[in-house]
């Protein structure tokens, strides 16, 4: 007798990956206590910045998987996060060098987790970003609910990423001021 697979719950929104650049080296140089404090600092800043409906889906070593129901919220929040990370790095000297990748798609819910192709795409995008950068996919830009005149998008080109059959057009998002 075959058992029917559970019905997929598909959700639409922004999938965001963050990654601390140099975390392994920082841990090796400064020890576990300092490394854990770095992770805690990142989590505190992110938790405080998330708008309603957005959430930390899970921790991934030194990175986070975030979920936003709105594309504009995702971009504005991730840019604000980078400004906050930069300010903390400057003030304290701790290297909170975070890179962020943002993609819009329709992953499937698996309990509190999200899985699927669009999650995989977002996880690839973060590796294109440098520390302090927010890199967004073209699909996220198409999903923006309203214009964001204070944000500039610089195209990186057709980025071919391992495991993905087609090139993805990516953009670096920055504040215009």
């Amino acid at each position: 007798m075959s058992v029917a697979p559970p019905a997929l719950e598909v959700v639409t929104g922004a999938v965001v990956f963050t990654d601390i650049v140099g975390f392994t080296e920082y841990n090796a140089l400064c020890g576990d206590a300092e490394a854990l404090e770095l992770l805690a600092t990142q989590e505190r800043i992110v938790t405080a910045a998330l708008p309603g409906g957005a959430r930390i889906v899970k921790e991934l070593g030194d990175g986070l998987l975030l979920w936003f129901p709105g594309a504009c919220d995702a971009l504005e929040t991730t840019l604000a996060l980078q400004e906050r990370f930069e300010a903390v790095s400057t003030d304290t000297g701790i290297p909170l060098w975070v890179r962020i990748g943002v993609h819009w798609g329709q992953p499937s819910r698996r309990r509190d987790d999200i899985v699927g192709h669009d999650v995989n795409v977002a996880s690839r995008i973060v590796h294109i970003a440098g520390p302090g950068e927010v890199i967004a996919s073209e699909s996220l830009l198409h999903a923006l609910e309203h214009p964001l005149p204070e944000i500039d998008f610089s195209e990186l080109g057709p980025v071919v990423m391992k495991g993905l059959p087609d090139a993805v057009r990516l953009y670096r998002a920055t504040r215009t001021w």
Partner: protein
Amino acid sequence: MHAVTQPLALPARPLLRINVKAGDVIVRCEKRSDILVERGVHKTSDAALTDQDVTLKVRASTVEVRCPMGTNLNIGSIAGKVVVSGDAGDVRVATASGNISVERAKRVDLRSISGRLEVGGCGDCRLATKSGRVAIGSARSVDVATVSGRVALRRAAGAVKVKSVSGVVEVGGAGAEDIQVHTLSGSVTVRLPAGTRPELRLRSLTSRATNPFTAGEDCSVAVSTLSGKVELVAD
């Protein structure tokens, strides 16, 4: 099957996109008014011309293209090397493991995970690589990020920002604009013209910085490292 080798007429503000899965990309920016694909595009459907740009899509082949000086280039590939010679406009390249070399460009944004990044001369330079080396001849402003890759910048006229986890960093400034270099374990050498009076913020947890300069307000030099050495050198 024949390669597409006939010249492609250009839109007013040309942007050439080249999308290659596995193969080298060689672009020559020279005195001409069209784009000539010399090698690598075998089907006319792989070359598209719109009002805004020319797009070449190639699966596994080396692409060689000649284009006008000042052409803007967006190039994406996984493994092949990318070589741009001559005078290009805005050059944006992203590869996974291929080396990227740009002779001269108005602006560059080069990204690779493990590839080496080389720029002869450009205006504004933004480069990011994980393990590849970075070499820049001359530039106006520079923003570089590496994890383990070594960074060598001969001379920047404008502001310089470098972040590297463990790569050795050597930068040369003109002594008039701000320089920021931050590493975790990589050693840092900053060269400034002799007689420059920089405002200095040097921080190393494990060693004393070497500094031959008298403090002043000509420019700001901020260097921080956890375990690397910091050395300022008068040229």
